[in-house]
């Protein structure tokens, strides 16, 4: 190792300089993303008071939250620079969690999931 360093000091110097430049670049990226996240949060708060249709506001809130979520995991949590396997392992958990949430929400919205008394009252009203 020492002999390698003695024969070729320049590449190590370049690597250090490259790493420093990379870290310095990251500092600015992190600050800009934090500002962006703060602005998006502000937009979300304003959005709920706007006289728009409900589906449009809900869709906008979901999209904005997803954008915030993705910025945090890919930049603050370094997924952008890490190996793809880290992204895959996290998204396995995320997809399973999302699927469970979707299934639960659908199950409990189904008519068969209504409490018996409520269901009987609904049937009586129909009759």
């Amino acid at each position, binding site marked *: 190792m020492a002999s390698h360093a003695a024969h070729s000091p320049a590449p190590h110097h370049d690597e250090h300089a490259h790493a420093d430049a990379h870290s310095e670049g990251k500092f600015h990226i992190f600050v800009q993303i*934090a500002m962006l996240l703060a602005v998006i949060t502000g937009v979300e708060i304003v959005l709920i008071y706007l006289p728009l249709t409900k589906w449009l506001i809900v869709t906008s809130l979901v999209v904005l939250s997803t954008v915030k979520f993705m910025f945090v995991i890919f930049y603050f949590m370094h997924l952008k620079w890490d190996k793809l396997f880290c992204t895959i392992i996290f998204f396995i958990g995320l997809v399973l969690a999302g699927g469970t949430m979707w299934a639960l929400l659908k199950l409990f919205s189904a008519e068969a999931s209504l409490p018996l008394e409520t269901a009987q009252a609904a049937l009586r009203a129909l009759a």
Partner: protein
Amino acid sequence: MSSHAGPIDHHHDHTTSTGIPNKKLFMWAFLASDCMFFGTLISTHLIYRLHPPPGSPDVKSIFSIELTSFSTFILLMSSLLMALAVNSLQKGQVRSTRQNLIGTIFFGLIFLACQVYEFSHFVHEKGLTLSNSIFGSTFYVLTGTHGCHVAIGVLWLVLMYIRSFKPADADQGRAWLIKGFFHLIVWGVTIVASMASMLGLVHAIQVGDGFGGFLHHHPVEFGVSILGLIVLWLLSRQEGPVDFGEANAMDVESMGLYWHFVDIVWIVIFTAVYLLEYL
């Protein structure tokens, strides 16, 4: 400190079969499992909100969007400081890492103080308890579990901060262990006293007593907070080489992953639990 000849590659580890450092892989697997944990808690809350049983409280009259928005900004900024702490240590800047860790701890504590205030306000002023409605049960379990995650994160941050003072001289190991334990006790006492002072000050301002009224009612908490901060400042003035640097960046990065995860869970809770109630 470290004996490596070239710069450390913080994203790839050629000694593992996956090319990913084991600590990082473990943390990502844990966070994936925690996604499912929070997924079930959030969906349980949403199910009861979509199908509220008779007698459910008027949630809009209970929530304070200003306080929750403030908490959200605080947690986002703590995430920025955490990312900067990792970035600093990857460059071997221990002093900057410590400053960013303290900033993250401070913002984490503000978030926790906001949550304690919110829960206290809901229970005493709005009459919403864990057991008097399904909304109360699902809300407190969900946000309380998130709060527990934040509290664990703060404890981890404090331990990492204390760890950054470990001397490079191995002969001082036992003395450092005792000093580290004392450091942890001082942190604990200061945090509890500061939280009590902060909540006392907010209460005094609300009832119109001002800072004078706060000092009159909470002299011990305020005094212990100031004393604790002075001792922490003195403890942070340790000189000499430390066994903490670029080689420990993975430990701080793993902790950072946990902290950012707490942030992304709050991003979802803020929208699903709070904002959607205002539509």
